[in-house]
């Protein structure tokens, strides 16, 4: 019996993403896992104790969810935890189109439903009125990519969370939380690289989120302002934390990483990346046997 409430499977490894070496990831790009292998690995991880998945709203998400649904009933067994928006795609668009044209481009490409909504609001002219309304439509366009699954919690990506936090945009956090709950009846979560400051601000603003996804690892990788400050903040925090980057992007050993996470009793939810059955077996054994 594990002491963890949830052990989630991350999707980065399926796309060949490698936080230790982008060079290695690029070299492996031609051998990125085939859909059948991904399906088998997800099924196997579920047998070993994976209760759900963290998925990015990448363009390929729909393709492999469809494949997963055709070949198995596994989709109904998993709690999905999507992270939106797909940051790399967004950053590429921002570089090429600028902020306003990026928003227009995203919404134009989001399908008929959103286009009708935009038309109902008087065309793109509505963008001039209210930035919060604009943000909600942006969330709606991302939600279209998720209509094949039932998400448990939807997380906002750190690229937006940390910018909004830095600029103290309380209304963005309020809008994300209330929009997901009211319109989709789904809980909202936040991803951050600045855990102590985020929970301090949420407390000040009296805002509660279902979960905060943030890095905890022995190396202190992506733990700002420091590993110690993140550990101290975790001690005091009353809400749910989903620990990510627990292997420091592949830098720390599996056993050392597991021992560290297990030593933090407030961490009851983790996300892990696995690239093979052997890797999955080794990883899940360590966490499912933890108490």
């Amino acid at each position, binding site marked *: 019996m594990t002491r963890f409430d949830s052990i989630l499977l991350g999707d980065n490894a399926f796309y060949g993403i490698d936080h230790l070496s982008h060079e290695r990831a690029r070299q492996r790009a031609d051998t990125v896992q085939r859909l059948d292998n991904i399906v088998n690995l997800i099924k196997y991880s579920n047998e070993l104790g994976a209760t759900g998945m963290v998925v990015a709203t990448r363009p390929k998400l729909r393709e492999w969810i469809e494949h997963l649904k055709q070949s198995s009933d596994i989709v109904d067994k998993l709690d999905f935890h999507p992270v939106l928006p797909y940051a790399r795609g967004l950053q590429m668009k921002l570089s090429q189109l600028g902020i306003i044209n990026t928003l227009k481009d995203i919404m134009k490409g989001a399908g008929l439903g959103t286009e009708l909504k935009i038309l109902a609001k008087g065309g793109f002219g509505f963008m001039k009125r209210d930035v919060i309304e604009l943000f909600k439509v942006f969330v709606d366009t991302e939600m279209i990519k998720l209509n094949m699954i039932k998400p448990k919690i939807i997380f906002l990506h750190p*690229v937006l969370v940390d910018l909004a936090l830095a600029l103290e945009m309380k209304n963005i956090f309020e809008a994300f939380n209330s929009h997901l709950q009211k319109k989709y009846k789904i809980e909202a979560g936040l991803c951050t690289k600045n855990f102590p400051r985020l929970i301090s601000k949420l407390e000040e603003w009296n805002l509660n989120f279902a979960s905060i996804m943030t890095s905890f690892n022995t190396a202190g990788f*992506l733990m700002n302002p420091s590993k110690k400050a993140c550990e101290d903040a975790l001690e005091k925090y009353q809400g749910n934390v989903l620990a990510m980057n627990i292997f420091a992007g592949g830098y720390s050993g599996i056993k050392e990483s597991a021992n560290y996470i297990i030593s933090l009793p407030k961490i009851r939810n983790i996300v892990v990346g696995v690239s093979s059955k052997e890797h999955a077996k080794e990883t899940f054994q360590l966490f499912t046997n933890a108490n």
Partner: protein
Amino acid sequence: MKVGIVGLGKMGLLHAGVLNTLEDVQFVSVAEKDSLLTKHFKNVLPKINVYKHLDEMLESENLDLLHITTPVVSHLPLTLTAIKNGINFFVEKPLTRNLDEAKQICSELKKSNLIHSVGYNIRFNETFSKVKSLLEQKVLGDITNVKSSMYASNVFSKPFRMAIQKKISGGGVLLELGCHLVDLLLWYFGPITKVTGKTKTVYSEVEDFAHAKFQFEHGVDGELDTSWSKEGYSIPEINLEIKGNNGNLRVNQDFIEMKLKNPVLEFKQTDIKIYKQELEKGVSFDVAGIDYTKEDIHLVDCVKNHKQALINVFEASRTQSVIESIYNSHSENRSLAVDYID
């Protein structure tokens, strides 16, 4: 310290975020011509004063530091305005569209004692700054050769952006990405004396590929290769391979790899790999990469203590000189000496 920003694009928002988290910094105002952006900014950040033009902002605000994060086409007039008003400033890279514009800024700056900085943030990246100290410690011995590359997967058709027009951008991939390589090479190995350059334009009116060979003043031979039209680089990737008489070193944003002939200093082994995870130790706040936070912390510290920044305009003008020489070498089809600003 009161700070303002001119230009609310991606980089403007990023620096606004970083600055707003720094102790002793009051992010007070923004100048942006796009009324839609300013309206939305005002909507979510009512405490920040918003202006349409930099002149208006400088008239109304008593700024200690100005961040110029507009497209390169406006760097010359905006930096000259900052200098005229006696405001310390940061300007995003590249400094200018061409060497002539850089000369005008340097000429005006020489008459002032302002603090200034240019956004070559890669110098604050942990792996690349570690290599600087390894080179200074002569871990590789005397350096003989360096190969450098920077690739991205951004341009595979005629770009949408107006900025790709040469009169607006001043150049293509060499000026936008390759400038980071030139800045690193000058930082590591000192002045480049001779350049042989080739560029290739495929998708628009500016170059999509650039290659250059260098001779450095201190005897090092070097090469640069850059493109924004190379498949497989969803994140822009920098690679340097440095050869010395005590071994070789390879560095990118993820790791440093060294193969030494003889152990030296703390390196008792000859095969060494140092990952960024070993080097990165958290920053006060990470908005979109710790390099940017470190860059702004460094500049704020320089302004507070009135000391010149690591990458000031005069340093950045040397990068501009090398880039201009590569373009000229290509068009004249011969090797050229680099003409630095005095």
